[in-house]
């Protein structure tokens, strides 16, 4: 029946794919993290209460662990991976020179030793004795090869190779050189990288690179064409914890432990990533069809998982935040008093509490509560205060008119607000915001739009206010708040902030960086750049027969798979 077309239009939570892809890109973060326990969020590990309820299907799987997740695109290649789910497979099959610790700082992984020159421009790496799963050893040539692919003129992946400032990179990218002069091979397991200028991110740019074997991927590689590498996207060969033995698109990826793994063979013999969808991932955990999954945090879901009894539940702050953006070029919104009034006048706590319960926090600066750069000193929390908001609007010259709407110089205080369709917060945000702002005398037109439509409006600057959520850049450094920054589609500009952002990027000492960013966040907070809505939590739930995970907001679960033990 032709009606099938319209009837099949979906309730797909495909947006989850996009939102998750935003939230899970972590690549570099520096040093110590102060664990801020000021959050009234419920988080942490909730242990299973009654293991006897474990379904037989799961209990009898003694040597296999099944992880459920949204289906990846089949791009198991560090160069071209894009979705969080492809990342998971890559993290399980490849290795980097340095890797995450639970607190977000780094430790050596494949690198045995890292030496930095006096002028901070040359990094010398010594590799550990490790092998790729095809038996060949990991050598310096492989590192060089990986960079050649990243810097190739036809490279269309996500890694921004040029920002590492390796000497000779630009020439290779433009095709005028056939080698990268800045990377020198000293011997099979020792090499050095020279950069033209350093920033706080340099050690991560150079060290957090997944090493790919030249012998396997580079066989037909010629500068200017990466097709031969792309052809191997779904058949990865790395030096990591597991190796992929089979892949069925849309269904499952089967992996086997890497016996020669340099940290010791993983205790899980067989690992399977099984495709699940949001509607049934809980059900699959319950029936034992899967052992582990990432479940959206809500009071209902947490309760259901607790009731199962055999699941360990790990609730962690998500590295990202939801925000209402202002268009600072808009004539009404360019006034900071108006922006502050709008922030005071919105009952954010009620919205967040209503949707997430104790599982999300209202935030006031664009940084995660568990980041080393987070601060609450001298930060205005803009607690809900309608009177204060009203007086600020009065001060700004907006007086209440005869019809209850404020006006100034003959213009009415009328604003348009767009929100991404089907974010759970939006269901509460729209009615509450409409009501709150009605009280203040603002004529608000609220609408929901498809995600991309809003992103497009954002890029074109064609909006008054909109709501969206995104992931945090791993390092506090970003281009959102600097004037004309790549991600600054808001028209915000504060020369002081520009100065501080540039300083922080160059500074290598963590304590000094902390102080710089503190000042910066205070300014951003005062300027009421956005209305920050919430930082929510992520939940990893796994069958308690598996123990040994080391999961943190910065160290995702695949990184500790090799140490997980299954109850026998």
């Amino acid at each position, binding site marked *: 029946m032709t009606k099938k077309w*319209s009837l099949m239009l979906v309730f797909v939570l495909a947006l989850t794919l996009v939102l998750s892809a935003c939230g899970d890109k972590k690549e570099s973060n520096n040093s110590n993290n102060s664990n801020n326990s000021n959050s009234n969020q419920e988080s942490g590990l909730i242990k299973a209460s009654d293991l006897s309820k474990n379904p037989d299907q799961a209990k009898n799987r003694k040597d296999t662990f099944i992880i459920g997740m949204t289906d990846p695109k089949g791009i198991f290649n560090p160069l071209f991976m894009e979705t969080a789910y492809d990342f998971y497979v890559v993290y399980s099959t490849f290795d980097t020179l340095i890797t995450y610790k639970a607190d977000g700082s780094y430790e050596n992984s494949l690198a045995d030793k890292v030496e930095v020159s006096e002028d901070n421009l040359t990094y010398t790496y010594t590799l550990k004795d490790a092998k790729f799963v095809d038996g060949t050893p990991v050598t310096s040539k492989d590192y060089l090869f990986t960079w050649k692919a990243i810097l190739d003129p036809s490279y269309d992946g996500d890694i921004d190779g040029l920002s590492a400032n390796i000497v000779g990179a630009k020439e290779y990218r433009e095709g005028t050189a056939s080698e990268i002069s800045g990377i020198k091979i000293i011997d099979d397991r020792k090499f050095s990288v020279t950069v033209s200028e350093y920033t706080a991110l340099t050690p991560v740019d150079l060290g957090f690179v997944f090493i790919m074997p030249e012998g396997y991927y580079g066989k037909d590689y010629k500068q200017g064409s990466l097709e031969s590498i792309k052809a191997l996207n779904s058949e990865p060969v790395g030096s990591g914890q597991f190796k992929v033995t089979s892949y069925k698109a849309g269904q499952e990826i089967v992996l086997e432990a890497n016996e020669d793994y340099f940290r010791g063979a993983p205790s899980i013999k067989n690992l399977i990533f099984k495709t699940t969808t949001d509607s049934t991932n809980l059900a699959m955990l319950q029936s034992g069809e899967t052992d582990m999954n990432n479940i959206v945090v809500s009071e209902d879901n947490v309760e259901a998982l607790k009731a199962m009894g055999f699941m360990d539940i790990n609730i962690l702050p998500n590295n990202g935040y939801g925000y209402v953006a202002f268009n600072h070029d808009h004539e009404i919104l360019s006034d900071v008093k108006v922006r502050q009034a709008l922030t005071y006048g919105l009952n954010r706590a009620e919205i967040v509490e209503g949707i997430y319960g104790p599982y999300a926090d209202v935030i006031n600066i664009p940084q995660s509560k568990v980041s080393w750069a987070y601060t609450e000193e001298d930060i205005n929390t803009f607690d809900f205060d309608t009177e204060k908001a009203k007086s600020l609007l009065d001060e700004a010259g907006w007086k209440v008119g005869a019809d209850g709407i404020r006006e100034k110089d003959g213009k009415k205080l009328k604003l348009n607000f767009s929100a991404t369709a089907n974010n759970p917060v939006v269901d509460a945000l729209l009615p509450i915001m409409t009501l709150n702002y009605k009280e203040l005398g603002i004529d608000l037109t609220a609408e929901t739009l498809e995600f991309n*439509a809003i992103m497009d409006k954002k890029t074109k600057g064609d909006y008054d206010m909109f709501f969206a959520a995104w992931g945090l850049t791993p390092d506090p450094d970003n281009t959102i708040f600097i004037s004309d920054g790549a991600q600054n589609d808001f028209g915000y500009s504060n020369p002081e902030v520009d100065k501080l952002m540039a300083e922080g990027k160059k500074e290598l000492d963590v304590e000094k960086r902390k102080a710089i960013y503190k000042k910066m966040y205070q300014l951003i907070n005062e300027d009421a750049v956005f209305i920050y809505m919430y930082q929510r939590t992520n939940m990893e739930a796994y069958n308690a027969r598996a123990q040994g995970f080391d999961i943190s907001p910065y160290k995702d679960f695949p990184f500790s798979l090799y140490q997980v033990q299954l109850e026998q």
Partner: protein
Amino acid sequence: MSASASPITENTDYRPKAIDSPWKTAWRRFARNRLAVIGTIIIALMFLICFIGPFLSPYGVLDYSLKDKNLSPNTSYWLGTDKLGRDILLRMMLAGRISLLVGLVATIISVIIGCSLGAFAGFYGKKVDTVIMRVADIFMALPSLPILIIMGVVLSDLGVEPNQRIWFLMLIIGVLNWTTIARLVRGQMLTLREQEFMQATEALGLKDRRKIFRHLLPNTIPVIIVTATLGVAGAILSESALSFLGVGVIPPTPSWGNMISAANNLIDFGKRPWLWIPPGMCILITTVAINLIGDGLRDAMDPKTKK
């Protein structure tokens, strides 16, 4: 003189029996079909409840109350509350306005377009037929989702009020769905065109327009009715899918479809049946009623029905 025999001409008791027009006959037959009448009553009640009901509710359209969230039916909230503490009964009635309108208007649009185009195609044949059918092919092949997304953006750019956008939604659903009816009508036309009664109209020298609209189309009505009644249910259900993507009925405005989809997870399903049973039952009852009416209409208009 015995019993007076009045001449026939003075017998004023005699009244010649009027011959009913076909429409009147149909109407009478319809009225005697119990199920059809029940269907009509149900629809009328539905309209009444949904359009007048909200005025009688103690709650306002924008009212929410987070401390009352997720309550099961009780004395202050007859059908319980949703996750924002909004009264389900009120929302169900408001949603009814939207869903009923969308279903009816969209179907009416597609029936009008489909009948006309299908009739012309079937009747004139040859070039007209070819062009119209190829146009129908194009419409059938168009992906509705991207079109609806664009429409959402264009409307937003034009500054159209969210409440007015529903009319555009109905228009688009109607315009994207006329092809089925057109094909069916055309098919019927092709068959009927060759029948004897059409030869008669040809002999009578009737104008084309008269032939199509007074003779051929009325014979295709049964098929049109079945398709149209199916169409209403289909339109109501498509609306629910579209609301999700932000191109249908936009929250917080409720529609039966977006109320059901809000409860679309195993937990709400099991624990909170009052969230999805009211809108679900509404869709069911409305669909059943419309179909009963459709059945009744078809039976009433078919000259071969003996009842």
